[in-house]
């Protein structure tokens, strides 16, 4: 299907949190493949395990309470879960970078942005001060911040949210990573800035050729950016397909429900309320038996309440975890 080299291959990843109230299976068997230079979207509601998946790739799960209890994360064919902390540090920020949701708090208030981008560079490259300053200014320029030389010596509080997110992107891309993980990177920004940042990320992706894993609950963002989309629900991937196919013919009832709940401008004006998925995300302490979506699924049968469906490839490249996939 995809002839490109596989960059990241996550197999049956399971990350649990051991809290005082019980065990939370935040990620319970997620599979995800990212090819070199591919833009992959990971979509789901709050608490479905998207961010935990991202943090698991970088092995940044706070322990305790969190622990990766099973699965494999292959990066260039090597299992990241078998690497020691020292080896992981060499990968973080160098081969795999991450940008976070809150640009307002993701930068250290006591250092200039130049200092912070330089730090990301000098942690992984043996270069002297002048060289790293030159590279930092290049990076500030690359992410579209005007007057890089002046901005170099400014503090985070002197910049807007959009500018700070650009700084975060500059930091993340400073070592030419092969994979950029964007964890809700545009969620905290207003729509116009969001569009600018997405444009920037897409432009840089084309220019630098890195793969991007976009984590979001916003379907519009992945529609714009991603080639492949995986939909997560309650710690598992329920559907995975190309972006085009996901939007055109969703096969899992959950994906279908999500897409139905987006207002469409092309439809005639009616007074009908927007369709919504009934019920709530299951409590992580009490996962339903069988298919995790069954309590909210309009098509659920006795079988769905008893057995858990496997993820199956229905058509080439289109995987669905459902006994009764919706006909395309």
């Amino acid at each position: 299907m995809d002839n490109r080299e596989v960059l990241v291959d996550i197999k049956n990843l399971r990350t649990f949190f051991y809290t005082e109230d019980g065990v939370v299976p935040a990620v319970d068997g997620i599979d995800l493949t990212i090819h070199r230079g591919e833009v992959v979207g990971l979509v789901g509601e709050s608490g479905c395990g998207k961010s935990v998946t991202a943090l698991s790739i970088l092995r940044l799960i706070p322990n305790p309470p969190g622990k990766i209890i099973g699965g494999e994360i292959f990066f260039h064919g090597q299992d990241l879960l078998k690497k020691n902390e020292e080896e992981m540090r060499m990968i973080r920020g160098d081969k795999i970078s991450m940008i976070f949701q809150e640009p307002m708090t993701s930068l250290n208030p006591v250092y200039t942005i130049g200092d912070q981008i330089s730090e990301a560079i000098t942690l992984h490259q043996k270069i002297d001060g002048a060289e790293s300053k030159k590279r930092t200014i290049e990076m500030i320029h690359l992410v579209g911040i005007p007057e890089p030389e002046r901005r170099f010596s400014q503090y985070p509080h002197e910049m807007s949210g959009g500018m700070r997110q650009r700084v975060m992107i500059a930091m993340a891309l400073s070592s030419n990573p092969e994979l950029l993980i964007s964890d809700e990177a545009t969620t905290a920004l207003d729509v116009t800035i969001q569009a600018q940042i997405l444009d920037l990320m897409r432009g840089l992706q084309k220019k630098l050729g890195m793969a991007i894993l976009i984590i979001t609950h916003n379907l519009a963002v992945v529609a714009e950016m991603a080639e492949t989309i995986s939909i997560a629900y309650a710690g598992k991937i329920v559907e995975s397909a190309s972006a085009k196919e996901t939007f055109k013919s969703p096969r899992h009832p959950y994906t279908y429900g999500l897409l139905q709940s987006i207002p469409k401008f092309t439809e005639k004006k009616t007074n009908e309320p927007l369709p919504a998925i009934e019920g709530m995300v299951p409590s992580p302490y009490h996962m339903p038996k069988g298919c995790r979506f069954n309590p909210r699924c309009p098509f659920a049968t006795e079988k769905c309440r008893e057995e858990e469906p496997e993820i199956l490839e229905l058509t080439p490249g289109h995987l669905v975890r459902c006994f009764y996939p919706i006909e395309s």
Partner: protein
Amino acid sequence: MAEKVIEAKKKGQKKSSEDYTYVGMVFHRLTRHKLAMVGAFMLIFILLFVFVGPLVWRANPNEQIEGLEGMFNVPSRAHPMGTDDYGRDVLARMFFGGRISLFIGFISAITSTLIGALVGLVAGYYGGWADDLLMRFTDAMLSIPTFPLLIALASVLGKGVWQIILVIVIFGWMVDARLVRGLVLSLKEQEYVEAAHAIGASANRIMWRHLFPNTLAVLIVSTTIGIGGAIIYEASISFLGFGVQAPFASWGNMLQNAQQFIWNSPRLIIYPGLAIFMTVLGFNFFGDGLRDAIDPKLKL
């Protein structure tokens, strides 16, 4: 329009808070804090007294005037603060005693803050058993009645300036450790710490480069107030006779020496007592003002 605004700013009738850098803003707020300014003037006075005074009044603090005539002189031209029981010039002893007291205050306050910061950083950052171990140790240190042990320690370690500093530091770091631990517990949840992990920074780097500078504002205040506390400690230890030893002067041992003559020559106790009082009060006022000026949530 925009040009006009810029022009108006250049004329600068009144600067808004955004025109300042952080340090500039703190300084500006400090100058408007009355109590802090009172404290600052007291400290400037003391510093001038102690460091410039000896240049103006050149007398040997340890030189004794032989004979009964030299003892307990009342203030005069020859001895502006009079002489003490050995016939030594009190003013000169005040200068050099003050230097020692301030030196002990600064060094022990800064050292105990650094040790407290180290303990607090490690406990707060690593959490778990490291936190339990270090904080229970801190609690234990806080529950020891300080004075008997201070005296015991001072008599074991010997008597001298560095011994006093060591003793004050041993009993002075706990409050800072708790302070920093509390701060680090909240700071380490900040996203910039997670971001630092994500660019591959090591634990040491995150503690010292990313967390420590963010606790500095609080630590500076705590050190300032700590200097006053350390001077009091020095005075108390010296007063009890375990501190700075004769013939060298410190404000504390001048007090100790003077207590036997309190009814005959009360001025011998008033001068060092007043100096300690002014210095400690100055540091406390200034420290309080600094705390208010550093806190951006307080409107001044």
